């Protein structure tokens, strides 16, 4: 009886899943909100989104590592209570044990299952051969290149013959060529049905990678993480990146990923409060991108996928950059396109000192946090203020990591704009000395 129901049920089904991160003081921080997902045998599903969209969190919930705040996670029709035996994971950082050889690393999942030595060695050997690691059995991970290391990660996951293979940004730590080889090798094995798995779910921020490998893509939006759209990829393997239909799909996904942000792109009305998360983007990169955008061949307008390709950026690197420029009023971000504004042109044309002045005005106008810091400093008799209070206030609205990142960013921007100085040792903001004299 059990057997029958289990086979009929999907591999994984997630219903109304929500992951919130409880804060003592104020509202909960919501990482994932109302996510639904069903995974059938025989498909490759991609979770695509920016960093912070909760896609890795969802992967960990599906793997049984993390318990969602609310919602239902079923594994083969049975509620999941811990790491499931039929799930194996491949990590972005490879997560290999540096003190174990390739063979010992691959064996570890079998050891955990208590598989006898003879069988263990046989299965390890065949997994190593399948994934193209033959001859490397006795090497240690640190002797291998990144690509070879991730092959070990794959072999380690495959050797336990999982029903579901979970991959968390498996190729993002690799260089372009190595990543491409690994992707095609994996897809080839999948098409030839040589992989001892029923289904694959992968997390990625690389749009092309998702379109290249997956049968189905769930595009996530950020803050809180939600499934913005679900897309079927209609192309047969092997897929051609230069096929116009392929390119169109990549373009469309870029559009989806930037769409929700369009309303906030009004330059003069920052829909941003004091506690907006700031992306840690250096002023050099902003200036560089504005200069590129203003100059030929873009002349002020660029298509994000094309710009990303030309600058060798990935989607999740370029998007925050575009959003930041848009928040500061230097550019407009709409439907996957970036347009420079007058303020942006003025900045590009200015000299170093003038740029700093423009940036200072922009910060005061568009970044409430920077304006607040400056206001507090102006009001204080000694023109000093501890950064701890700002950090605490930020932490009421975002996770400690984001609060830290936001504070670092506002320090760096403020230093560039010469709005205030910061003493790392004392954790204190202050006004520049000579400025006091002028007052």
């Amino acid at each position: 009886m059990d057997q029958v129901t289990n086979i009929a049920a999907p591999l994984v089904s997630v219903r109304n899943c929500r992951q919130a991160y409880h804060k003592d003081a104020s509202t909960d921080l919501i990482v994932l909100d109302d996510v639904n997902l069903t995974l059938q045998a025989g498909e490759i599903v991609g979770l695509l989104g920016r960093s912070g969209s909760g896609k890795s969190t969802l992967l960990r919930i599906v793997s049984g590592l993390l318990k969602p705040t609310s919602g239902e996670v079923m594994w083969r029709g049975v509620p999941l209570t811990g790491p499931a035996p039929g799930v194996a994971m491949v990590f972005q950082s490879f997560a290999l044990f540096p003190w174990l050889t390739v063979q010992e690393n691959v064996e570890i999942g079998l050891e955990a299952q208590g598989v006898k030595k003879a069988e263990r060695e046989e299965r390890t050997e065949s997994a190593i051969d399948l994934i193209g690691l033959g001859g490397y059995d006795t090497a240690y991970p640190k002797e291998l290149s990144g690509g070879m290391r991730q092959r070990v990660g794959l072999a380690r996951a495959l050797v336990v013959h999982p029903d579901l293979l979970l991959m968390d940004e498996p190729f993002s730590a690799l260089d372009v060529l190595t990543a491409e080889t690994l992707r095609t090798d994996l897809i080839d094995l999948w098409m030839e049905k040589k992989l001892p798995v029923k289904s694959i779910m992968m997390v990625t921020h690389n749009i092309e990678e998702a379109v290249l490998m997956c049968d189905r893509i769930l595009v996530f939006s950020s803050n809180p993480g939600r499934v913005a759209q679900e897309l079927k990829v209609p192309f047969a393997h092997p897929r051609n990146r230069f096929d116009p239909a392929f390119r169109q799909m990549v373009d469309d996904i870029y559009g989806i990923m930037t769409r929700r942000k369009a309303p906030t792109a009004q330059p003069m009305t920052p829909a941003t409060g004091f506690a907006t998360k700031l992306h840690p983007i250096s002023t050099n990169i902003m200036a560089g991108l504005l200069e590129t955008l203003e100059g030929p061949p873009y002349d002020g307008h660029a298509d994000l996928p094309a710009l990303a390709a030309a600058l060798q950026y990935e989607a999740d690197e370029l998007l925050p950059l575009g959003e930041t420029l848009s928040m500061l009023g230097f550019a407009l971000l709409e439907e996957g396109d970036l347009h420079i504004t007058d303020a942006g042109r003025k900045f590009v044309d200015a000299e170093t000192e003038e740029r700093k002045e423009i940036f200072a005005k922009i910060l005061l106008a568009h970044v409430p946090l920077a304006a607040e810091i400056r206001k507090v400093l102006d009001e204080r008799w000694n023109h000093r203020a501890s950064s701890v209070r700002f950090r605490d206030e930020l932490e009421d609205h975002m996770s400690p990591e984001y609060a830290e990142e936001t504070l670092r960013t506002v320090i760096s921007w403020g230093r560039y704009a010469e709005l205030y100085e910061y003493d790392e040792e004392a954790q204190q903001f202050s006004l520049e000395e000579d400025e006091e004299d002028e007052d």
Partner: protein
Amino acid sequence: MPSFAAPALASGRRMPNRWDGIAMLLVMGLLIGLVDVGRSTLFTPLLSSQATTIHLNPAYLPAYALRTTARMFAALFASLFFTFTFATLAAKSRRAGLILIPILDILQSVPILGFLSFTVVFFLNLFPGRVFGAELACIFAIFTSQAWNMAFSFYQSLTTLPADLVEASKSFRLSAWQKFWRLDVPFAMPGLVWNTMLSMSGGWFFVVASEAITVGNTSFALPGIGSYVAMALAQKNLLAIFYAILAMLIVIILYDQLLFRPLVAWSGKFRFETTASTATPDPWMLKLIRQTRVFQAIFDTAGELVGNIFRLRLGAGASVQVDENRKPSRVIDAIWYAIIAAVACYALWRIIGFISGSLHWSDLGQALLMGCYTMIRVTVLMTIAALIWVPIGVWIGLRPKATRVVQPIAQFLAAFPANLLFPPVVVAIVYFHVSPNIWLTPLMLIGTQWYILFNVIAGAAAFPGDMREAVANFRIRGFLRWRRVMIPGILPYFVTGAITASGGAWNASIVAEVASWGKTNLHAQGLGAYIAQATTAGDTPKIVLGVAVMSAFVIATNRVLWRPLYAYASRRTTLG
């Protein structure tokens, strides 16, 4: 050259809080408990079976050396067992960690040499009339000199396990036992081996000091090098002392070459790094083991056996989801705090009861004054040692050839039990009739100054090549070079060495501020002498007071001087 921050330092930013106070109470209460058990037997007559005759004939020395070494290793295994259990408990249980870690921190700073007499009597009491009790007491004394920093190092490794490896262990469903041997222990290995080496170095000092003990009118001598030296001192036999030094030298060379060099090199395999670092040549012993068939066969078989034990699927551990929303139960927390508070109050009550009966405020004043004397000694010595060893260490560290020669020698010297070198100095003081107040002082730092030297060498050797080129290119020389480049560059390393050296000096003061040669007794004014004299007189309350005051001095120096300095140095002198 491997270099790890002293465990006491890495927890640098932890400010003193109420847990430290509670831990101090618990530790002192525990020691007083030991005293109470011991006191009842202090004046029972000595059993004849415990009186072992020590022969000064050098032919006995190899056997003595062997027994001394055996005690060392027995203590080492006890320390390892303690490390694996205590530190694991502290790391895995938040509630246990809250109190266990401050206790460990206090224990590190207690001059356990001062409590030797009580642990001895305690163990003799456990096994009355048997040498076994005395052996256990000696091993326990060595254990107390080894265990704390090993446990600290292991605890720190456990709290900094790489998150992805922890996740991988969980997702592949390793059992708790498997995870411990596959992840926890290997990850901690380099730091643990290094700290074990430091512990062993400290241990030789204690084994020599604790083999022959006199408390009140109880005394015993276990066959070993320490007792041999004690006997030689009593009989004014300078030649025998030189034999003992020679024997110790050989023992330490053997232990260093056969065990620890290979072990440290081997533990490099567990270094958590993603790139292959430049290979340093294997020590000859490791090469021998790796390249000889017989050794290989032995180690492979042993590895297979041990591997099977590590593979046992004991403990569930991994089959539970992480639930970030689950709050720890307030009720259990409250009960736990209440238990700790009750035990601490009981300890406080016992301490007050113990002290109020026999001590006055003037005794505390006296102990504090003595503490100040010893403090002055330690400060002057550290300054002199820094002035001597920092320039020499930098000079050596910047020259790779010199570093390769000197570094092992400095580490070796740190292991040599300095108390064996005391007698010649004592003889000289007696002969020249100079002031023991001044001339006994250098003995405190004889053993531990090497920590400063080899840490400074390591720091200078790790100085980045491009920065050295920049210094040469901008012609930064002389005082400017020291002020702006060298001293900031080696500061974290210097502090690491200095904290070990100064802590060791305090401890050594208990044996260094009093000395005897035949019937002549020398003693300097200081807290060490205060404790040592109270021990000889069997005046237990004064010993407790002396030890408590000394702990307070050591903890205060660490908190006020070394930790902030280390935190400052590592913040300021590292990029990123």
